[in-house]
């Protein structure tokens, strides 16, 4: 890989959802693949995610959502990330994401969508291929 620095990923748990097993498993997989991971812990607001992403100058903004509130959260987050000048970063989301919502998530700017049952290797490969 030609990157001088490792890919820096913000991995956030949006909203009130407390299911963090998946996020932590993905965090470990990204670290094992040589990435730097900032994991936020639970209960992040859209404002907090945008602020940390900007402060930490991350390459990738990743969300893990298991409790169904991904669309309203991502709508708010999109506006905040754009305001913060983070439109060029790679936005990805994983979790319990019904197929019927994938088009809307793509439309909001989430390039990678990883519903339950996604493989760790696929997540890692996608981020390596698309992070700028």
């Amino acid at each position, binding site marked *: 890989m030609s990157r001088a620095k490792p890919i820096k990923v913000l991995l956030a748990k949006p*909203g*009130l959802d407390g299911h963090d097993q998946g996020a932590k498993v993905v965090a470990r997989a990204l670290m094992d693949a040589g990435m730097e991971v900032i994991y936020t812990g639970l209960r992040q607001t859209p404002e907090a995610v945008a602020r940390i992403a900007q402060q930490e100058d991350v390459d990738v903004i990743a969300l893990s959502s298991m409790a169904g509130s991904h*669309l309203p959260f991502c709508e708010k987050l999109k506006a905040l990330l754009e305001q913060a000048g983070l439109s060029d970063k790679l936005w990805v989301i994983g979790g319990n994401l019904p197929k019927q919502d994938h088009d809307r998530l793509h439309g909001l700017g989430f390039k990678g969508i990883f519903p339950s049952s996604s493989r760790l290797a696929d997540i890692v490969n996608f981020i390596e291929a698309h992070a700028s």
Partner: protein
Amino acid sequence: MNDRLDPAARRVVNESGIEIQPLYTQEDVERSGGFGFIGEPGAYPFVRGIHPLMYRHRPYTMRQYTGFGNPEDTNKRFKYLIANGQTGLNVAFDLPTQCGLDSDDTLAQGEVGRVGMAVDTLRDFEIAFADIDLERITVSLTINGAAPQLIAMYLAMAEKRGYDVRKLRGTAQNDILKEFIGRGTWIYPVDPSVKLVGDTIEYCAQQAPKYSPVSVCGYHIRESGADPAQEMAYAFCIAKAYADEAIARGLDVDEFAGRLSFNFNVFGNIFEQVAKFRAGRGLWAKIVKEHFGARKPESGWLRMIAGGGGGGLTFEQPEVNIVRGAYYALIAALAGAQTTALCCYDEAYTIPTEYAQRISLRTMQLLLEEMGLADTVDPLGGSWYVETLTNQMRQRMEQVMAEVDAEGGIKKLVAEGEIQARVSAQAYRMQRAIESGEFRKVGVNCYRVEQTEELQVQMHPYNEDDARRQIAGLNDTRATREASRVGSALRAVREAARDGSNVMPAVVEAVKAYATVGEITQHLVEVYGRYREPVRF
């Protein structure tokens, strides 16, 4: 002998780390500790069951986890399940309620009524349980961070309907230590959180002695990555911490231990699971008798809901989850659970439909009605394999508990995020083992199908209007309640928290005055502060 059977036999180790032999004989039981610890059902140490006749006397209660939208919607689903033969209720609350927020809080936006029923005030409980006979149908509340408020609401609602609270049965989950490990609906820091559990135990022991104020959960620790022996060992460490809290305020162990209940998972290897439950029953009885000095045998009963199994179900080929669920129900029945419930086949996708709930209910019913699971107590008892494994599982659990004690105790390890880090490391190893094919999951890493047909799953619709209706009801309650009574009740809650006395009497008064879940939380937060998660993984 093993070599003679099959020199090329692969080494088989169960999830709890115990090596499994191709054949067991009486010698294996003797080597593992013998039959000495097993005893008879209904007698100490209760390995074979807490009652002499078990399901002959009373079959397991069937208690599907249910709740969504508004109290009106949930009341309808409750009635549907009861009409279909369900014998208990297990209530799911939405995340704002679980996190102690009102439905109109900005942090609740988009989450009201989504993963469970929204509750703001006593009025919501009055609607949710309308027309349900609370003596015939016992109710389990899956609530943790906001447990003081919701226990208070349940008691107040029952009292208003004319039930004698001193005879009222029911359960609250109210296991906050496991919320820090998995599930995540904590509110206050670890110490005041455990103090509140102590308050509910003390209050119920005095005011509602048939009510089970705590259901200690290995379940979610297992879902977060723990192996079956750790699941039970960590739960016992947590139960000991609550018992210590109750004893520290002067309660006798026999005043409350009989009302502690437990919640465990059922996915995994059938024999390992059944041995886990039998071993756990013996170990908990031993702890309560030898460590806490209980004199009443029933203080050491491991009364439990064994069910769920969500962590074992798959997103792939969801209809196969119906079959997995049948085996999980079999495990719960063979294990002698007091109560069972099953995650539904569509639950990896959505809130289950009525149809999916009915399949789960029928699964549990047919074991009792057609398959003979209610006929004989502890049907696997005496199996050389299961008895050996029961001894070995107990030894593994004791070892895990000793390690926790040696490292400073469960409260400290949870506050530091150490248990969380340990189970998440295991979850990662398991995910890697599934992806490499080393740990087999049917439909996931073997026997896969390309899903060309539409999946047989119907998504639960989320109605945006639910939140608006809920907030309108909340505003209506706020406008019609007696404001000065609410204000003084809330001040009393804060004062009780400040002077370290039991907050429950004040919380009950506040709830009766129609104070909201969020208002009570806010007054407790002013004293206790909020938990700051040690972010470790």
